[in-house]
């Protein structure tokens, strides 16, 4: 059973004449330790799907199963404490970083741990250790507003992974960065995802950023129109060469 199993997810905004179908029967599967990129043009439903999977903005219909357990969403109902699920099992990275401005860099990272009941002292110790890995140790005691864009995004990644989440969701994590810094953040995300065996979904519209990802889902008009494995060879005939030169699910 995959770590994330989103089955025929539909999301409708508004009603009647103002009704907009943002997602239409979108289904994806992500295994533990698998890195998945979600691509597509603006307005294709990538972010909406990510929000639906994180239960930040639950779907209108469909079924969502997390970590091979019971459904967390089914038949128009959220079946779990969504915030508990997010703080215990998920790490989320935002396009605009969304760091807490009044917490220091180390406190931003430690916050998720303390919300999960880890003592402040232990949380700060673990946060500082992670910041060393991400080359942010010397900025540990300043506030996020004093960091550069790349540093802020690395901090957002640190916050997302500090709790060893089973699922990491990243919404356009490189959109606010230049190519070099964007690649660095993606590399970091890939490395941490692999090390921690997390199921990673990263939304991006930049094909240069998907290097090293296990699978790519392409969306258009709220649907997943195709998926492929960009760096994997044909194994059993189910994969064909896709438009980017990688392999596409047949």
């Amino acid at each position, binding site marked *: 059973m995959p770590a994330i199993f989103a089955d025929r997810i539909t999301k409708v905004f508004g009603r009647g004449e103002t009704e907009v179908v*943002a997602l239409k029967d979108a289904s994806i599967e992500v295994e533990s330790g698998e890195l998945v990129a979600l691509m597509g043009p*603006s*307005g*294709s*439903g*990538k*972010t*909406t799907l990510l*929000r639906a999977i*994180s239960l*930040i*903005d639950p779907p209108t219909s469909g079924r969502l199963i997390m970590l091979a357990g019971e459904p967390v969403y089914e038949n128009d109902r959220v079946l779990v404490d969504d*915030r*508990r*699920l*997010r*703080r*215990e099992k*998920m790490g*989320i990275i*935002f*396009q*605009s970083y*969304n*760091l*807490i*401005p*009044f*917490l220091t860099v180390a*406190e931003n990272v*430690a*916050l*998720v741990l*303390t*919300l999960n009941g880890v003592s*402040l002292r232990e*949380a700060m110790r673990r946060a500082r250790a992670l910041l060393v890995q991400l080359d942010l140790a010397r900025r540990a005691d300043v*506030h996020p507003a004093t960091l550069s864009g790349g540093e802020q995004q690395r901090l957002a990644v640190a*916050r997302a992974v500090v709790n060893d989440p089973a699922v990491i969701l990243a*919404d*356009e994590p490189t*959109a606010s960065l230049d190519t070099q810094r964007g690649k660095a953040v993606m590399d970091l995300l890939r490395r941490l995802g692999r090390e921690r065996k997390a199921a990673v979904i990263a*939304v991006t519209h930049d094909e240069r950023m998907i290097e090293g990802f296990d699978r790519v889902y392409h969306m258009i008009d709220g649907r997943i129109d195709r998926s492929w494995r960009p760096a994997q060879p044909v194994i059993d005939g189910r994969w064909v060469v896709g438009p980017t030169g990688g392999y596409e699910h047949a």
Partner: protein
Amino acid sequence: MNLAVRDVRYRLGRFLLTAVGLGLLMATVMAMGGIYRGLVVEALSIVQAPGADLWIVQKDTNGPFAETSRVPDDLYRVIRAVPGVQEASPIVFQSLQFRVGPKPFRVQLIGYRLGALGMPLAVAAGRPIIRSRYEMLVGRDAGLAVGTEIKIGRLVFTVVGLTEGIVSNAGDPVAFVSLQDGQEIQFLKANEAVRNDRARLDSASQATPALRDVPAEALRPIVQNTHLANAILVRLQPGADAVEVARRIERWNYYRALTTAEQEQVLAESVIDRGRRQTLLFRAILLVVSVVIIALIIYTMTLEKTRDIATLKVVGAPDRAIAGLILQEALTLGLLGYATGAILISGTYQYFPRRVVVTAFDQSVLLGIVILICVAASLVGIWKALRVDPTTALGGGA
């Protein structure tokens, strides 16, 4: 991790400025409460200062503070004989204004029998009055020094001592003189007035057959009588029932006898009633304004954090963590504002022109109200925060 402490620390300057602003508002509320209390305490001080149990005043009047009251000054001898009375003494009151150099002074003059009821219980500087004429004690509030000479009408007084803590119901300082001096100031007519009254009396007696044969000299004291007082102060024997003695005096001596409590009631419910209610109403309005301002500040503080709250929700912070952030900040702001106000008022109340009485009870009640306001306002903020859509934290895109 205490989010409120960290948020306050991050926005410390702004938070402290808000708290100081709130503190100024709190100080105003406290001052208004103190002014209200001071008004009542000042008004009652003149009734309470002599330590009398009963006030004997002119029949059908409410006593010297509310109306004109005149009684013979020797009435105290009769009253002293009433069962239950330990001591009785005449007293005169008069509001007057005099000048020392170019500066006008307004005082409540009290004339008392030396060594008897009505004398000031303490002299803060100088000495008590020991001569029966032309010596004066003045309230320290008047700003006159011991040794100052004061001319009132034809009389010249020397300030021999200063008193503290007693003022009139208008807030004027008191001045004590001997009974005889007080009577002369209030009742002694000018020579011209005496001559006119005598001529009027002579004319009236000639027109009245029954008085035609009475020598004019026998009638002349009628026009110049200073043996009057505004009230007789009475101290009762231990265990005597004040109401019973008062009713007995009213029944047999044809004067009105007010207990000190009744005299206080006359002052509080009629003489200073409008001023008291005006101050009370203004105090209530100020409190309502404070409630609204505190509520708005806390609500605005919550609105400013909408995105942070949304982010907290996205990373999985439970409602209690978000509610704690808002409630703790609201309480910190309220308590800091209250403390600032308390410090301000405790350092400035003595400079108000009239007495400001800040009581521990009033301060405790205000503290309770501030805490209640903060909790109530933060509940509105919490309600708003819990309704914040977590997607607010996320960027656009679909």
